[in-house]
């Protein structure tokens, strides 16, 4: 299942950096995957943390 196009459009319309928009969509896809999965919560918290860390390291400087 993909993200609802209205939500995607709203993200695109936000006055933020394109990398931030991409991160928001990535987070939503992550949540979508989480919703239909049986993975544990702890695993997802770790993955969330990694996703944030990766974004910061990729976009710092």
């Amino acid at each position, binding site marked *: 299942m993909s*993200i609802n196009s209205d939500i995607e459009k*709203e*993200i695109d319309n936000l006055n933020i950096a394109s990398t931030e928009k991409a991160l928001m969509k990535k987070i939503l896809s992550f949540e*979508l995957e989480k919703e239909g999965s049986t993975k544990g919560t702890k695993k997802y918290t770790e993955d969330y943390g990694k996703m*944030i860390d990766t974004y910061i390291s990729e976009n710092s400087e």
Partner: protein
Amino acid sequence: MADNKQRSFLSIRLKNYRQYYGDSGKISLAPQDGKLINIIQGENGEGKSNILNAMNYCLYQEEPHFKSQYSGMPIVNIRAINDAADGDEVEMIVELELGNEEIKYKIARKITFFKNKLIKQVDTEGRETISVTRIGNLGSFPTGVNPTAKNSFQWSTGKDWKTEVNMEHHIHKLLPPKLKSFFFLDGEFLDEIASTFKGVKKGVDELSQLNLVYITIADIKKMVTTYERQSKGTDTETDTYLNEKQNHENWLESKNLKGETVYDKENPGLKMEEGGSVWYHPKSGKPREESKKKELDFLKQKIHEIDEQLQKNNSSVSQEWSINLAKIEKLLPKKYESLEELKSNKIKYLVQEGPFVYLRESVTFASNLIDKKRKVGQLPVKQNEIFVKDLLEAEKCICGTDLHDEKARQNIIDWQKNSSKDSKLDACVEIGVEFRNKLKNFKKDFSVLDKFRSDIINLQEEIDNYEDDKKELIAKLKGIDEIKVKELFSEKTAKEELRDETLVELAEIKTDIKSHERERNTCEVDYNRAMKNNSKLKGVADKLELLQKLHKTFNIVRHNVTKKFQDSLGENTEAYFKKLVWKETTFSDVVLQEDYSLKVLNDGYDVTHDLSSGERLVLALSFIAAVRQISGYKFPLVIDTPIGKISETPKTNLGKFYPKYLADTQLTLLVTGSEYESNIVGVKDNPENHSVRKLIKESVNVEYKLNYNEKKKQTTFGDYT
């Protein structure tokens, strides 16, 4: 296995489900040649509603469209149970296939049990009945049997079928339970339209993926809290700002330091249901605002219900009658008192002025006499005495007679003596002045009496009118439960006062929330700055700043998407409704509320509860069309008795509109013969008096007729002839 294309029911199979005896086999509903309307015709009681129930049972193990006469019946066909010998296996199957050209879903509920000896009981009227027991979600079965359920959810994109374990999860993905009442419509749904719409919010949120945004926001918040915890204990300044920020957040969320919700334990909330337990509003912030909003909605609903009850009691009029009667009853004793006072004053006046009135002629005579005597000098008498003395001393009368003569003098003295007998008349000289004045004012005084008389007559007439009105009002109010009306009005007033207080409190809460939000944001800026100044916290600060920004932006997305959906849902519902209802001028607006309930307005007045059955159906259909449009969700629609309650003109409009209404949505109509086939007469746009069947003929895919055997009490699917 996801798809975004229109889904249709492809088939339904019923085996020994309620009155459907035996195996119906697959009854095809699959669209052909682009035709999307299916007709299943049956008369009342022949099993139309149980098709709706079978579909719901298959998907959600619920039978919401249940008729009360079946409440004591087992879910499995009675004949199938009776035909089986003790120890034989009895089987019930409800199976649905739905999908599109890309993917098919097969959902089956199969129940088997071994028949035991049926347990009978005798009811209060001495009749023997078979005892039935409800077993969980499975339904009702003859007492003592042990049913086994075998459910399956399969899907296929080609020849092979794949089975999913978590059946309910996949069904809910196809159509969330919260939305099912918008796709399986019946009369009850239409009658409860106002309340039922409220439950749709969760479903719409799921369909539009707004729930995903809510979950994301909550997850980001959790991450924020985790990183904030990591920042603690490094330096005092950071901790101070964080504590202040968290204090504002706790206030905004009505939470204590442990993260538990804080309630306003001193003031219990309103009892919202009969016998409901005591509950309390959250103490502060947005939860309190939400809680108070709910209470406000409850109060508004209750006030509306009271208004409806008052209307039923004809109270708008009877209330006026009661008020008028009370006024009259209060006024009448005072009027009678005034009347008595007037009468008494009149008598007092008569007593005082009466003698003069009655002796007017005598007074006039006396007055004239006095005047006459005065003119001839006979009055006043005392003056005569002095005058005679003067004449005797002068020894000459005014007539020239010499009064030296004794006889002449004696004559004068005798005259004076005689006239002194009338000396009392001297008093008349004084009274005469009064008499003259009295006579002069006589008309004026007499008019006072007239005024008394006319006032008394008028007041008596007024009293008589009030007495007549009183009698009439008592007669009118005789059939009305006046006490109940009074109670209702008093309850309404109390609720209105509470509503007004709640409105004031809500306005105050909103202001406080804004203030706390502002202060919280200031604290957050200070907190972030303090962290960045601390080299040990720089890494955490970066993550937190990003998460804070994400939290804000996702909230903006949530707000904008919600507003967009709601606006679109409201506008589309209104557009469909006005197009369908054929009364654009009668209904000025259709308003979608935050909780997704709908209001139909006429010049600003809420007329939702005054809609006719037909108009409610149109509203429901309009809303469904709009929900479908905004969500992009395409589930088939089934409507039980879709036009039975509608008058001829909207029936024609619906007949013409159904094929176009949800152009790419399958529509299965469960109809009676008369609503489907009877000619529609007297409608300008239908000069040939076409029936609904004729109006939608070109769009009809399949037509089935339910054949009901009264003797066997069983229904089978047959061809439409």
